[in-house]
């Protein structure tokens, strides 16, 4: 159940009044349910009660599912931001932004990531001289990315298509960490890569890169 449906149900029941109504409200306000946090619940509850104050946008995945997302969160994707600006979309429109390259499972995860990171400062411009680190992945991101390879690559493709730098960076770092320390054969096994070198090519590449090996 999504938050809005929860709050709708409880709102309706609470309105019916009586003991049950206020009891339900009370439970939900004090419980630490895993479905949604108390803050989100109250926020949504208030929203359904009052005039629509937070502008939302509807995103549609490739398999037809629609997700309603706060416009500011959706704008972390430069692709979506540009689309909105180009199409001159009004926030109150019932327009739906189609995302034919992203399926619902992945879109859901992307929205989850973007929501958690909505208050992050914009990522700094790449400094040419800084050695790129891979050990600065936060705990939350590390947990978020504990998924199978297929999902990880789908997330990378989605982040690339939607142009979400933060997500692309952290997913690429994760893959880089999977590569570190492995021999070419181990890398091939891990990622199911076909060795398409001929024996003479293979020898040539090895020679070309001899200078990089340990002294």
């Amino acid at each position, binding site marked *: 159940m999504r938050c809005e449906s929860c709050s709708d149900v409880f709102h309706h029941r609470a309105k019916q009044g009586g003991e049950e109504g206020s009891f339900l409200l009370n439970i939900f306000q004090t419980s630490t349910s895993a479905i949604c946090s108390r803050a989100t619940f109250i926020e949504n509850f208030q929203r359904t009660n009052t005039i629509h104050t937070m502008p939302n946008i509807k995103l549609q995945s490739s398999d037809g599912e629609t997700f309603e997302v706060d416009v500011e969160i959706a704008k972390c994707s430069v692709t979506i931001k540009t689309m909105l600006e180009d199409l001159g979309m009004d926030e109150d429109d019932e327009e739906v932004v189609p995302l034919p390259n992203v399926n619902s499972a992945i879109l859901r995860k992307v929205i989850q990531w973007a929501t958690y990171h909505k208050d992050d400062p914009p990522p700094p411009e790449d400094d040419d001289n800084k050695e790129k680190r891979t050990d600065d992945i936060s705990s939350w991101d590390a947990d978020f990315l504990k998924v199978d390879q*297929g999902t990880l690559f789908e997330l990378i493709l989605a982040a690339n298509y939607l142009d979400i730098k933060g997500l692309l960076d952290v997913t690429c770092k994760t893959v880089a960490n999977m*590569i570190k320390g492995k021999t*070419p054969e181990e890398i091939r096994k891990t990622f199911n*890569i076909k060795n398409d070198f001929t024996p003479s090519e293979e020898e040539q590449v090895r020679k070309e*890169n001899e*200078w990089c090996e340990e002294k």
Partner: protein
Amino acid sequence: MSASRVHSHQQHLWTSLAVILRVFCSGGREKSERRSTWVFFVRLEQYWNEAKTIDKLPDKVVLQIFSYLSHREICRLARTCRKWRMIAYDSRLWKCVSLRPEMSGLHVSSLEALLALISIRFGPSLRYIELPIELITHTVLYELGSKCPNLTHMLLDFSTAMQLHDFNELQGFPTKLRYMCICLSEVIFMEGFMRKIYSFINGLEVLHLIGTYEKISEEEEEIYEVINIHKMKSATPNLRIVNLYGINFVDDSHVEAFSSNCIQLECLAVNYCAKVTGSSLRILFQRCRKMRCLLAQQTGLLSEHVQAVEWEKTQLQELDITGTDLTSDCLTDLLTRVPALRWLSAGQQDGFNDSVLRAFADKGNARSLMALDLDRCESLSEDGLYKFLLRFGPQLRGLVLSGIPHVTDQLWTGTLPSLRQVKILVMGMSEGCCPKISQKVLVDQLVDCIAQNCSQLERLELRWDPETLRYSDKSQKAIDTLRVRCLRLKCLVLSDGKYYETVKANFERADRTTVVRTTTNCRVSNCYLLSCYQDLLFN
């Protein structure tokens, strides 16, 4: 998850699908129902066929993944398959190259190999290069000048030089350099090289001259002025940042020299240049109106010279006077006259006592202060510090209060609630030759307090020795809280011992393997908060 597991999952799925399909198709179901089931399975099949593998990623994404790996790794990746070989050779991955093997750089076996690499591999993408002495020849420099038009940062390491190569034939040199770092040797005179490049380096904005401070032996050896700073400053009028690190011959005349031609100067660092006494600081600030950062750690600053500076007319924001022997009067005078300091490092100052701190708080401009380092300032009392932190703690991003025996965990637990924005924190003291600390440190409560209050924490160092720390079997809970609450924590430094092992194991179980380190190979300081931190990095 390995590819083979994905495959076995796929096989399993196909078997089940085949069974279900047979069941549905043989049963007497409605045509429409069968059709929708069919559509469902077709969609599922499509999904599985499109299960993403790494070869589905576009080249530019693979390039980004490679950019997080070292050059050694990249050379290894080139041997995996044809596509990866092509990407590994993309010159965009070779923007910053270090060829100093002793500094974890690459090792090039011959000059010819390097020249070939410069043309083929590095080319126009090269932005930054580090060269060891054996590769600093006129042909290499000429090649770099002609083939790498975007080379803006260069490090030349002469420190192990026995003799300088002949540069009489030097025809060309990179012309767009903005950053140059020269590691000096003790005995090799640089003039033969420098006079050939003066005409190429007038665009230089950042200059590092790294001396041999760390290599100085016990006896008083002869000190050679191996590089002519007076000539250098004439060639480089656009310098903004000058770092003279640990150079034994640098004195006040050299500071004055830079001030006479480099009026764009914003940051001057003379750390570990023992001969600098500060007599030219007054004129430095008069001439260089943009000076906002002065780092003079472990120099020979004299109080009368420091007091002679017109501090109130300067734009100074960052000051490091660690380990200089200044009097309390001088410090009070300095801190009440200087305009808003945001970064102050005044460690190892016996003269820094409570009255200095009070004067700074009441009469000085401490409103902009965001980083403070008072390591080993033993003249400060617990009470004085407590009052100061209660008032200014909320604005601090970095705080170093290590090395003071009477700053106990009780003071910390009392002041941590005021340190909500702090990103860098260093506390505790190791015993060494100092008087023994009588009380044990209850580290569990301390860690818990840090976790509850400092959610922005990025770097933490606890310097207490393992014998001083007292922890219980409940310590795991405190460590968990720290790990879970301080999600930005990227560095936690402890003294090597049982407690360190416990914390390290905890973080490793949570897959945060690089966070916990020992004091033997890592130190935390406020330097990350300097505005020109990036430009001040060298080696």
